């Protein structure tokens, strides 16, 4: 699936993560820009979690920007999932 709209999920608050999705042209691949307050300790873990969600939702071509403030793994998963659903226009029940 390829995102159609710009979308975001999350906040800037502590223990949360802000995820922004930007649609890109088919064939560009995934670009994940991550910045985190715990970059040194968990950069790879957070990226792995994000990629895992993208894989699960079958999103191959996307520009994803994440600003993390120490979110736990379930939070990261939820935020990425919501952002992707919003960008696909299939998120229901919020906004």
């Amino acid at each position, binding site marked *: 699936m390829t995102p159609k709209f710009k979308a975001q999920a999350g906040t800037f608050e502590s223990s949360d993560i802000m995820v922004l999705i930007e649609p890109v042209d088919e064939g560009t691949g995934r670009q994940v820009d991550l910045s985190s307050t715990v970059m040194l300790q968990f950069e790879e873990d957070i990226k792995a979690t994000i990629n895992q969600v993208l894989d699960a939702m079958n999103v191959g071509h996307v*520009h994803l920007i994440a600003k993390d*403030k120490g979110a736990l793994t379930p939070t990261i998963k939820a935020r990425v999932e919501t952002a992707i659903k919003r960008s696909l226009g299939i998120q229901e029940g919020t906004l």
Partner: protein
Amino acid sequence: MSVENTDFREESLDLKNPFDVKLVSEFLSNLGFDYITDDVDYSMILYNLNDELIGTGSYKGRVLKYVAVAPKFREGAAFAQIVTHLIDIVIQKHNHIFVYTKPANLVVFKGLGFTEIATAEPLFSVLEFGYENIRSYQDYLRSIKRDVHVGHIAAVVVNCNPFTMGHKYLIEKACRENRVVYLFVVEENRSSFSFSTRWRLIKEELGHIDNLVMVKGGDYVVSGTIFPAYFLKKEKKSDIAACQAELDVIAFMRYIVPILNINRRYVGTEMYSPVTLAYNKAMIKHLPPNGVELIVIPRITCGSKDNYISAYKVRQAIREDKLDTVIDFLPTSTRRYLLSEDSAHVRAKIKSKVTRH
């Protein structure tokens, strides 16, 4: 501590309602801000459940402004909540968000994931956030870069509002004296002539020159964006202009020069505009110590000795309907454009308002 989100209540402000405006301006004036409603597109306020006013935030276009939290609530999440609220709205319309703040507050915004572009001590820092960033602009620069490693590589930054013989002379002179010339055209549409018009008129006239590369100024070249003069009411206007200029020059030095290997920058002498004067001063301070030679070219004249060519005079002449007095200032492309019907709306716009740009 209870759940943070339930501690606060967000409310949008009705900017037409004098009571709302008074509420915020009183709150802000206690914190040293001077709230001007014309300066914002939207404002929000944050209350706690005792209906105390905790903080506020606003934006204009893609610039966040007046983000402030009362001192006794600064330890909580109020600040993050205000910024989140504003970004939620702004990011719908813009890919790129800016914040100007005091260097002392730099760390607060960095903590929220903003990236610092440049700092001019002691007044300003500018930060960015969004889908596009300085890296995207650098990628663009790499895509148009000429592969030249030896010889002089020059940069010229122009607004060309409108394009005159003075610009043409400066650019052609630079092209003769250098291997490659990168011509940055200020992209911001705050001038009477739109970016696409300015770009087209230059291209028509100079597009044939081999070693001239036209570059879009993006958001980093003379991005006067929106002057954050509001929180600096104690400072002199000239100091603000100087710092603003310094920000631009630092950004140019830090992000553009290394990519394109620029080692010279051409500027024209400035006669009338204090802002450009401040800009030239900032360049003298920052460019030569960093290995970029600054070359100041005296303005050329037309006819008599004192008749300097200036885009300002051209706009003045349009305003007074005396285009024929400056017709010799204009290269063929601009002349043709100004005499044609295509420019009718631009001329009307210039006549209708008295601004310096």
